[in-house]
């Protein structure tokens, strides 16, 4: 039997995406199901990502499964110079599924080609993070009732933010209108604009967050990292101009929700947290349901 992996959001058709989202909704209604009894899942974090790892481990635990693994490469044989291939082939002998986070791009695809158990990509460098994308889609559908014909504003680091790129690709199936708000240095790369042009989808670019918020169904915030700027002066100048504040939400649509893949630093003012339009912590909770759905779907435990 050919293995089922989840490496890139582009591996999934619209039908498969809906399948996962429907399953996630079922886990939201009934999170504790003993479906992973006697199953061992490996969580291999070649670079630390506390949030993603805990979300997966919570999902596995709620399904009654066990997990093994490491939380950063220094505590694994990688520090002794073992190749990724050898690590994966070995761990595949110990587990029923491998969930991996790795700083090198394409590592998850490569792992899926050498592993005899399914591989789930929990982030490969700046490339893909498909389980994040699926939980974003789940959060959007849950709050909007649909994925079709929405106005989405992406704010912050649109150049390196892989969550933005993957969500943009996935939302292209749903006639989305895109609004990109970023400093000049962190603009959305041309390859994604070409992608949207080819799909005949509308997008607009802005330098100022105030210009566009009132039309939004979703505001997707991302963190701007200092190390992304070649000029530190430029960072100091821009870091505070992409901060979402409560007063900016006053005239936004009633259905509008603010999403953020987290961790947040200062790009969303803390007093927004109390606003009913803030959704990012619930979004993180949705991540557990979505990952339960992904794991059980891939292992064929949920039809």
């Amino acid at each position, binding site marked *: 039997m050919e293995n089922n992996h989840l490496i890139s959001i*582009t591996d999934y058709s619209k039908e498969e995406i809906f399948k996962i989202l429907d399953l996630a909704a079922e886990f939201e209604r009934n999170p504790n199901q003993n479906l992973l009894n006697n199953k061992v899942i490996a969580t291999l974090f070649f670079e630390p990502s506390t949030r993603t790892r805990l979300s997966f481990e919570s999902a596995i635990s709620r399904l009654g499964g066990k997990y093994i693994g490491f939380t950063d490469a220094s505590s694994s044989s990688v520090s002794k110079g073992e190749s990724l*291939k050898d690590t994966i082939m070995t761990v595949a002998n110990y587990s029923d599924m491998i969930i991996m986070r790795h700083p090198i*791009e*394409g590592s998850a*695809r490569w792992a899926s080609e050498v592993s005899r158990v399914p591989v789930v990509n929990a982030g490969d460098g700046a*490339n*893909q993070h498909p389980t994040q994308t699926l939980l974003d889609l789940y959060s959007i559908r849950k709050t909007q009732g649909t994925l079709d014909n929405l106005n989405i504003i992406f704010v912050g680091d649109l150049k390196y933010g892989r969550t933005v790129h993957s969500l943009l690709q996935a939302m292209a199936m749903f006639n989305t209108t895109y609004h990109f708000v970023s400093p000049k240095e962190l603009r959305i790369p041309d390859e994604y604009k070409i992608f949207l042009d080819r799909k005949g989808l509308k997008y607009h670019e802005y330098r100022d967050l105030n210009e566009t918020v009132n039309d939004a169904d979703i505001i997707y915030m991302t963190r701007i990292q200092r190390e992304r700027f070649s000029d530190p002066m430029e960072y100091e100048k821009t870091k505070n101009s992409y901060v979402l504040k409560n007063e900016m939400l006053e005239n936004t649509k009633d259905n509008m929700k603010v999403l953020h893949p987290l961790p947040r630093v200062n790009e969303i003012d803390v007093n927004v947290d109390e606003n009913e339009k803030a959704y990012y912590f619930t979004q993180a909770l949705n991540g557990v349901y979505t990952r339960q759905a992904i794991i059980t779907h891939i292992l064929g435990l949920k039809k």
Partner: protein
Amino acid sequence: MVMNDKKLQVSAIKNGTVIDHIPASGLFKVIKILGLDKLEKQITFGTNLESKRLGLKAIIKLADIFFLDDDINKISLIAPDAKLNIIKDYKVVEKKIVEVPDTITGIAKCGNPKCITNHEGIKSRFTVVNKKQVAIKCHYCEKITDSAHMEIF
């Protein structure tokens, strides 16, 4: 006449293949891609020949060697204008041009320094996303490398 000169060059082998219109700078890469350095047949190379279209061109004449389309198309990344003359009994029996294939395995290097193919000994794999101005998308890291940044092994 120019045509006669050309015929004379081509008809120097009895049976085989002539690859013409290779950019002179790409000759050695073409030799490597096709593995010509490992063949034991009679092969003649000419390089830095004048060409109106390419400036300086190279030509390869291979006695008793015929390529499959899939094999010869591998050189399209280096020599997109290459033309093949298939020679039988001193006559050109067929002319072919190379075509950029849909997928490329093991010839090009992914331009992304953070790609797994540049870190572990993995054969590179690409799908061709643009055939006119050649651009290839890595099967692993999903990044696109255009012809200006393309490195051939």
